[in-house]
């Protein structure tokens, strides 16, 4: 975008970007440095040995995986129905879904709170999985519907002419061709589910059911504001996210570009 001919200007540009990026690095440096105060890496060991620490990760993994699977399945099936099949009242259904896009999750608090108690869902994975998935489905449908609608109609005609019904079309045409957008759906949903704080805070009160976003609160209680250990816990909980991002970085960008909101 920026055309810079002269060498010193190019160096200047490089310096500008470097200075601009520093504030983004600062909190991460604070976190790492604070977590290593005193016993260095021993802090991490101490934190990891607190009973029940691994359980937070397991719970987060179970909840995120279920939400991703549920959202992926619902969104893909629905998008195919919306984009390529015969549907009376198509736009009505679609707008019913889209209206949910603007919904702040805190609005669900009162009814879910009472309903979960009645149905005995309190402190189960479902209490978090179902509302999280419900909140993510509309955006996922929006992305995949547009993508499927953009696939050439000839493909669908060809397979139909060959005698394939909707189920076979879905299996052999929609599933393989939607892989690029599936990456976007999975990544958006994964970030939302893994990072969610409010739902587990309210609906997973039992110690054995809590997720990693509740770890800092747990350690504040555990260590009486021992900052070093709290920061060490924060680092350990952040590591899987950073590793996942670095590993999937290209997929991230492909997904975001495929789903480029224009």
């Amino acid at each position, binding site marked *: *975008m*920026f055309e*810079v001919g002269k060498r010193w200007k190019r160096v200047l540009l490089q310096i500008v*970007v470097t200075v601009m*990026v520093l*504030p*983004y*690095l600062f909190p991460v440096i*604070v*976190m790492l440095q604070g977590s290593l105060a005193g016993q260095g890496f021993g802090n991490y060991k101490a934190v990891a040995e607190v009973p029940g620490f691994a359980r937070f990760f397991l719970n987060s993994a179970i909840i995120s995986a279920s939400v991703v699977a549920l959202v992926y399945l619902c969104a893909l099936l*629905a998008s*195919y*129905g919306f984009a390529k*099949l015969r*549907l009376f009242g198509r736009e009505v259904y679609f707008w019913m*879904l889209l*209206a*949910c896009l*603007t*919904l*702040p999750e*805190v*609005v*669900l*608090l*009162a*009814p*879910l*709170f*009472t309903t979960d108690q009645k149905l005995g869902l309190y402190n189960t994975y479902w209490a978090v999985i*179902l509302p999280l*998935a419900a909140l993510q489905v509309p955006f996922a449908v929006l992305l995949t519907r*547009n993508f499927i609608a*953009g696939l*050439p109609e000839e*493909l669908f005609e060809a*397979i*139909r002419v*060959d*005698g*394939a019904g909707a189920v076979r079309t*879905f299996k052999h045409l929609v599933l393989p*061709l939607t*892989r690029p957008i599936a990456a976007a759906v999975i990544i958006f949903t994964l*970030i939302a589910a893994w990072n969610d704080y*409010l739902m587990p805070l309210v609906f997973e009160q039992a110690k054995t059911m809590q997720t990693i*976003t509740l770890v*800092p*609160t747990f350690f*504040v209680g555990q260590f009486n504001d021992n*900052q070093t250990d709290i*920061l060490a816990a*924060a680092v350990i*909980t*952040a590591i899987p996210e950073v590793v*996942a991002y670095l590993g999937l970085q290209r997929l*991230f960008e492909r997904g*975001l570009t495929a789903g*480029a*909101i224009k």
Partner: protein
Amino acid sequence: MATVRQGFGGSPGDAPLSSVLPHPYRPRGVLARQRRGTVKLASGLPWILPALVLCVGLIYYCIGYTGLISTWKWDGISPNPQHVGFGNYSQLFHDPLFWGAVRHTVIFFAVTFTVQTFLGLTFAVLLHSRIRLAVVYKVIVFIPVVLAPAIMAPVFQAMLAPGGQFNTLLRYVGLGTLAQPWIGQTSTALPALMAITVWQFTGFTFVLYYAAMSQIDQSVLEAARLDGAGNLRVITSIVWPSVAGTTFALATLSVIGALKTFDIPWLVTQAGPYYATNFFGTYIYQEIIQLDNVGYGAALSIVLLVIAVAFGVVLQMWRRRKAL
């Protein structure tokens, strides 16, 4: 709201259409077509049903139930709640905490959106220029997006404390007079939270702008340069209008984000001091979960929902008019 770039993400490339079809279903010419005939297009209803049941079922049920509860005075447990009609709503309009939350949300949106747009755009433009190690900068700016706000909250608490690293840094660079308890006083608590939010989401803004800018036609840029347009002129006259759709989508997401704000104010400042960082999210949480004013919390939720949907509709209409 979103348009998806069409195509196969590069996998089949320019191969003939038939070759991307899985083997057993490749069209086998006119003969095959005549032999088999066409299957009637199936109904889409069963396909959209799971999503509808999950989403519309759960969410609309919850909204309806919230609407009902909002007419009660209720602690969430007692079997016979007291029916108060619109009492909760009239109470709400005289509630200074409610108006405080409205004010904070508006300021929060205006500032974070403006700053994020500016920074995201600047990063996208700079990293589209000839910069070495662009990937490193991209990763640094984007990592905050994947870190959970709930996990970063204690870090920011430590960093912005009176004896925290931020004040140390200020003293180190000779700005010690500016050192203050950033999250401990009403005057700076909200700006501090806005700074944290900008830190968190610039990466998202940046990546979307970056993707949108990759799609600008290079020949248009070259033509502008040949006509003598400088860097600034190219950005204001070509780049900025070309990414207007992205800006609009980001504005929508920022409005929703501001209305949803909960994690950061709750964990970093506990909505304080003296409610200086109270938002809808924290207020509703306090009323429903901590104070057992479930009826009042439900009324707040309904008002929040109305505001959110109203904004959604207004933005959508604005977008249509500008034909983005």
